[in-house]
């Protein structure tokens, strides 16, 4: 069992070892590459001096706040468009005109309007998170078993009751898949905003380390961001299975 578990790690570990040896033997002097041992040392040091934990807090705060706002807006619009074909058709041009704008392209305007800080980052992340939520929840609502809707009509539920008692519960597994997708996007966008402009969080840490000619620290941030993304996805998968059980896999599969 233990060998089975370690097997997938063998290749990356061997690659790291080869890389380490190559850098050491070739006496590589680079401002953008560093041996894995130096990266690990820099990671431990930056964790110990709290610079990485503080940056992680900043990035995750902005990413989660943006994710929450974007998800709520996307979900509300998605449900509305899923229920009402007329509304969907009316808004189609507007939505399809705004949706393709890369969220990062809003940075120059966001900087002038909102300035550095959490606010700008949250707005950009929220903008990026609205779309997957909107589109997937719209599809999820449309995909609800028609008989459920008939039942709701037979029970003479008000529109609000229909949304809360029938639509959201029936579409929830798929909505959660959309949420998982958005969570990944939120982290990517948050770090990108920090790399490009915002002087806080992990992205800014990468830039500062690069400009300080500390490739070891820069790569340490990179490794850490990878670990956070991996951890976040893992947590969401566990939550998904705990919340929805077998419905989760059904939702994810469709």
């Amino acid at each position: 069992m233990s060998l089975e578990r370690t097997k997938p790690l063998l290749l990356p570990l061997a690659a790291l070892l080869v890389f380490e040896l190559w850098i050491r033997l070739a006496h590589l002097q680079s401002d953008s590459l560093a041996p894995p041992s130096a990266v690990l040392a820099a990671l431990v040091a930056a964790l110990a001096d709290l610079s990485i934990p503080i940056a992680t807090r900043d990035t995750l705060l902005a990413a989660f706040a943006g994710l929450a706002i974007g998800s709520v807006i996307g979900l509300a619009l998605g449900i509305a468009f899923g229920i009402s074909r007329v509304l969907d058709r009316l808004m189609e041009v507007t939505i399809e005109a705004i949706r393709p704008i890369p969220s990062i392209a809003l940075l120059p305007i966001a900087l002038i309007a909102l300035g550095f800080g959490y606010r700008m980052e949250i707005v950009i992340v929220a903008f990026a998170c609205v779309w997957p939520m909107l589109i997937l929840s719209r599809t999820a609502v449309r995909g609800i078993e028609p008989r459920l809707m008939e039942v709701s009509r037979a029970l003479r539920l008000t529109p609000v009751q229909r949304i809360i008692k029938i639509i959201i519960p029936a579409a929830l597994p798929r909505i959660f898949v959309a949420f998982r997708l958005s969570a990944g996007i939120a982290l990517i966008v948050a770090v990108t905003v920090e790399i490009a402009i915002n002087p806080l969080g992990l992205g800014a840490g990468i830039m500062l380390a690069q400009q300080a000619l500390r490739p070891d620290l820069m790569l340490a941030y990179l490794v850490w961001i990878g670990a956070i993304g991996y951890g976040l996805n893992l947590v969401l998968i566990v939550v998904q299975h705990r919340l929805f059980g077998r419905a989760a896999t059904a939702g994810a599969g469709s």
Partner: protein
Amino acid sequence: MKRQLARLAITLGISLQMACALADAAAAQAKIQIGCTATSDCASAMVAVDEGIFRKHGLDVEMTPIAINSNIPAAIMSNSIQIGGPTSTVFLQAVDGGLDLVGIAGASVMNPTSNNAITAFVRNGITINEPKDFVGKKVGAPGLNAFLHVLFVKWLVEKGVDPKSVKFVEVTFPTMADIIKSGGVDAVLTAEPFVTRMTNAGLGSVGARYAVELARTDPIIFYAASREWAEKNAAIVTKFRDAIAEAAVIVNSDREKASASIAKFTKQPLDLVKATPPNQSEPRLKPENLAWWIEVMSSQKMLQSKLDTSKLVLN
């Protein structure tokens, strides 16, 4: 399912509240924020923070590192920072573009030492004997239309070489050594400590010391603010100028203290900072200091309007 929904709603609600609280915290700003890139140009502000000179003058100042110099004007306009250290070229282009910025104090100026540190570093296998050898070459500049690029183009023009015959690409400082090594560009416009590092690594040689030949003493970076803020806070600006003047003396005379402050702000290793003399600090900024830049940038068609130097610097 209801409980799950309630849980989800609570989580989202908490996140929203946190976001709002953070936004409020960001809005309430009491300190003066100074935004600079990770170079030695704003050394006077770094020293003034570290040595308590700002505090002595009654100013509560914090320095914000900014990744790209051309972001500084927008950061000032959004009041994220009240004072920034743009390069002369970034400042003039921003004002030309309609942003109402004013210079309030000098930071760094070109002098024989800093000019000597600026070079066009050429990769192995390329020989540059005279300016026209750059014709047809691919040259990496840390920023197109930024400080070093504008200087180099000015030098080419003075030497009778058409700048259009040289292909310019953007190469950031930290990636220069690797790109020169891989042959991705023929030369890079760079400065110390990169020149020494690349020379020691045997990656190439100095092709031209164009800043030495231009022999200018104009400002590289100076402290700027929005006109509105500067006029409203005239007393703060006066205190800021006094503090910067005091700190500039330290930057120019005490390498130990200056290096320590620069290393602290830029996070560069102290040995690396000590190896390069910081750019000359010149706290006074006069309107006429910008005239040469305006002339050079106009001749390179980087400015659309005619800028009035007397309006560019706060009295």
